[in-house]
């Protein structure tokens, strides 16, 4: 990872357009390309895959994830 990142926001801006893993508190994971996010941590993903217990449950072309769902990590 680049060393010029100084804040979480800068990190997230650098991740836009890259594949990410979004984990919700409910245990559901979303994998997709990060299109954008906002101050509430609402997230827009492309080519989204929904994974539950290691199983692929669903695919969405575009997906909006509401920021309050306890996003644990973005990898």
């Amino acid at each position, binding site marked *: 990872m680049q060393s010029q990142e100084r804040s979480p926001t800068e990190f997230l801006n650098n991740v836009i357009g890259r594949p990410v893993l979004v984990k*919700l508190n*409910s245990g*559901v994971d*979303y994998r997709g390309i990060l*299109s*954008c*996010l*906002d101050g509430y941590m*609402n*997230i*827009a993903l492309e080519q*989204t895959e929904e994974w539950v217990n290691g199983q692929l449950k*669903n*695919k*969405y*072309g*575009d*997906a*909006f*994830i*509401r920021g*309050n*769902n306890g996003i644990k990590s973005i990898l």
Partner: protein
Amino acid sequence: MTEETHTAPVEPAAVEEPLDLVRLSLDERIYVKLRGDRELRGKLHAYDGHLNMVLSEVEETITVVEINEETYEEVIRTQKKTSEMLFVRGDGVILVSPPVRTG
């Protein structure tokens, strides 16, 4: 008109913030995943920043997983409801997607 051929994408003003994705779905049928294993499919008429939404011609799918106490088998039961017009409070929303390619 002079030639101003900047390569404008087909999408108008594209997606710059996540809510743009919802804005582009206005008057389209969308898929909404809600807390409590509920899903909605309906036409989006209005929304706000809380993700409160007004949907019409809505099909709601409620999934209940029951465990048979004798066999410990999981029984997945789905229940469907339809509504002509529905107001959705935004705090229950997990995910919103245009319904294309939604299985």
